[in-house]
């Protein structure tokens, strides 16, 4: 059937007032709170910096040119590297975790998912400060290790890139596990049995059946970790010292400190574009599986 346009025909508006109201609310919400702000950001990114009113004409692509300044390019590449490492560790921990989780009894699954979600009830800023206490020079970890006599001098953990990555992994791991859990939960045991039945060992089955069928979950997890990781400026601020480690720091600084709105906006647009690319890849991978719903 042909898809109907989003705008309902007039005679239906009165026939189905509830449906119309709900649709209007959703569309209104999306227009007002998603599309408009994003368009404002895109708009701001092509304007000129103005010390008085933040933005002014003429339109220019200078801000985008500035993104390729070696100074900022370095930040971007470093940010991408940090986010990449974070994503890698999240995947490394999250994939086996989600796999094991899907194999447990329903009751245990519910309990573990609950435990996974509980930290969300505490503000992530507060949790990052808690992590700082653990990693500080005379923090809990160092004191314990010295108390046990394993080390003589405190390790320098805080204000390193490692600390930032630990913080990012800690905050973002659930976002990797949840989509992975969802694909593992859908993965039919019979498919793995069929693979063994046809002569494939554990490794072959993993590579030829498990991995391809959980790939949409991997991509969803990567999307939910990689890009937020580049933007979580407060983690870099608290655990990494006041260096421009992440794109998020750059954006924050441009808006709040340097007062260069067009440049901050351009950096935001870059992140949004990266998101779009990943979303596209995710769609492709799902289409390859043939919208599994039918099988």
């Amino acid at each position, binding site marked *: 059937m042909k898809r109907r346009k989003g705008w309902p025909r007039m005679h239906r508006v009165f026939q189905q007032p509830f449906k119309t109201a709900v649709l209007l609310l959703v569309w209104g919400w999306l227009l007002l709170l998603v599309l408009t702000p994003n368009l404002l950001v895109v708009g701001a990114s092509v304007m000129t910096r103005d010390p008085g009113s933040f933005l002014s004409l003429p339109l220019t692509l200078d801000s985008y040119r500035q993104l390729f300044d070696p100074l900022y390019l370095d930040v971007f590449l470093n940010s991408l590297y940090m986010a990449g490492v974070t994503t890698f560790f999240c995947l490394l921990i999250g994939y086996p975790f989600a796999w094991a989780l899907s194999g447990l009894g329903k009751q245990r699954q519910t309990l573990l998912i609950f435990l996974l979600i509980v930290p969300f009830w505490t503000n992530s800023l507060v949790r990052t400060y808690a992590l700082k206490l653990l990693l500080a020079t005379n923090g809990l970890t160092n004191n314990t290790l010295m108390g046990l006599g394993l080390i003589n001098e405190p390790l320098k953990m805080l204000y390193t890139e490692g600390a930032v990555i630990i913080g990012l992994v800690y905050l973002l791991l659930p976002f990797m596990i949840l989509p992975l859990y969802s694909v593992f939960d859908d993965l039919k045991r019979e498919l793995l049995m069929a693979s063994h039945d*046809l002569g494939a060992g554990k490794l072959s089955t993993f590579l030829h059946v498990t991995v391809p069928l959980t790939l949409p979950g991997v991509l969803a997890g990567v999307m939910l970790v990689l890009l937020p990781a580049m933007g979580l400026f407060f983690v870099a601020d608290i655990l990494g010292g006041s260096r421009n480690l992440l794109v998020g720091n750059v954006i924050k600084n441009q808006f709040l400190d340097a007062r260069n709105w067009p440049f901050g906006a351009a950096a935001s647009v870059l992140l949004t574009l990266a998101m779009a690319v990943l979303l596209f890849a995710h769609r492709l991978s799902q289409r*390859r599986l043939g919208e599994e719903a039918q099988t």
Partner: protein
Amino acid sequence: MKETLLSLKNVSKAFDGKTVLDSLDLNILDGEFITLLGPSGCGKTTLLRLVAGFEQPDTGSVTLSGHDITHAVPEHRPLNTVFQNYALFPHMSVYDNVAYGLKMERRPKDEIRQRVDDVLAMVQLQNFARRKPHQLSGGQQQRVAIARAVVKRPQLLLLDEPLSALDYKLRRTMQVELKRLQRELGITFVFVTHDQEEALSMSDRVVVLKDGAVQQLGTPREIYERPANLFTARFVGETNLFPGYLASVGDEAITVDILGLRRTLQKPAFDVRKGEQVSVLLRPEDIRVLAPEDEQGLAGKIVERNYKGSTLDSVIHLEDGTEVLASEFFDEDDPTFDYKLGELVRVSWVDGWEWLLPVELEPVNEEAEGLATDA
């Protein structure tokens, strides 16, 4: 005499303390089409999984052509399975699904292509090789599942209720197709079903299972005409059960009193003594419905009639309350042949078609009642 291909000895299996298979012995012959028939929960699927290697028995052994495979992993067993819901790999084309097993054997590319093409032609899917499973109909998916399993030329093919997801007409077609494939390939088929009609029409031999134990093993005809116990009799087809009283027992023949009717029958294989009770079994098609003024037979009245096209099925209540099912073919000499509800009739049957069984104590809520329903 055919040789034994697969042999299960004293196999037991319990899940969470609940016995699913109870010291079961079974020999499957080379080249036969054997069906495991039973209600859900009878252990037939567990039995299949033990043979495929997805479960390990608690006791006993599984031997395939003389090799003990009790603890072999599934990938090392020279047999393949057609799964109930086909379990086709959704991310692979039909061709890749079928080629999967041969790729795992690391066969040369040319050989793989040849064999996959051949087997796809055999199931008439040569034009669908590039499709994905979700682009196929249920019957086509079923064929892919079969092709994928037989392309490896297994010694034994296990089929776990492979037709249960198909509608009635397609089922009949696939039944014929499966028989044809089995003849052409010469592979031993072990077929699991809860559908007795399917079991009877397709198999060389049928194994009737209940509560993890073999109730009867025999040809479809033996199972239907000479059931070993009440369970088999009721599970395989409809059955009328009459109480019989042994009036006299001779060396060869016995006389049985059935609700006042005296019949002289051949002595059954089990022990009988004068004065004891036996169960007398008659299939609905053995029953003859006679006019009320007839001298022979038992008096009763029609309480239900069902026109079935080729037969007229009726339910008759005898005077003592016994319910009798009768299934009669239409008689060309009597085009008006029919009954009215409440009509008085007499019930008789073809002499010598009675089948005797010892009286069994029946537990209340006998599962055999709700038979052919299944998950």
